């Protein structure tokens, strides 16, 4: 039990990071903090995906002058790459919307600017 506990710690770290992100998203009212929450959430998912592909003692999956050893799984790395780009795109769009909202209402508090909470 203890061995799996220590061995599986990377997964739990990703989950804890996700918990922090969800805490921010649920309890914080500042729009910028909500954006941060989404970014942390996506980082936690990225961390989870990358840890999924790790092989003990593995090397990067690139054959150029590769040393001996098993290669870590490439597909999750591709998925992570995709998700990073998507996260960048999302946060760019959200930030531009936040700027617009700030121009209109002069406030970053979601209680003031949004008609309904949520």
């Amino acid at each position, binding site marked *: 039990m203890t061995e799996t506990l220590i061995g599986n710690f990377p997964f739990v770290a990703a989950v804890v990071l996700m*918990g922090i992100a969800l805490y921010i998203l649920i309890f914080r009212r500042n729009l910028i903090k909500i954006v941060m929450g989404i970014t942390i959430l996506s980082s936690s998912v990225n961390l989870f995906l990358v840890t999924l592909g790790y092989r003990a003692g593995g090397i990067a999956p690139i054959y150029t002058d590769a040393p001996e050893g098993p290669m870590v799984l490439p597909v999750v790395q591709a998925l992570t790459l995709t998700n990073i780009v998507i996260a960048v795109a999302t946060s760019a769009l959200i930030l531009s919307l936040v700027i617009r909202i700030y121009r209109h209402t002069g406030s970053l508090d979601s209680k003031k600017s949004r008609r309904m909470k949520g």
Partner: protein
Amino acid sequence: MRQFFAWLFLIVLMVFLVIGGFEMVHPFGEPPSTMDQYIIDNAQEEAGSNNVVGAVVFDYRGFDTLGEATVLFAAVMGVLLVLRASEKKEET
């Protein structure tokens, strides 16, 4: 009241996920790899690329990358649309 439910939701979710994290069927460092091993073995021959991740991104899962590029394109278009100068009338 709402706070209480939010906390409850968060704690229950976290407990489940942490248990899930500990109970991963395949422990850290020993993932199952039927699909990935095929890609590692054949990427050089099929895609001609030394970088296996590159081969996955642009060949095996190229359609995802098209989607990803489209997401970025959409986001940039969205930023430019949202931050456009003013709503002057466009003459047609």
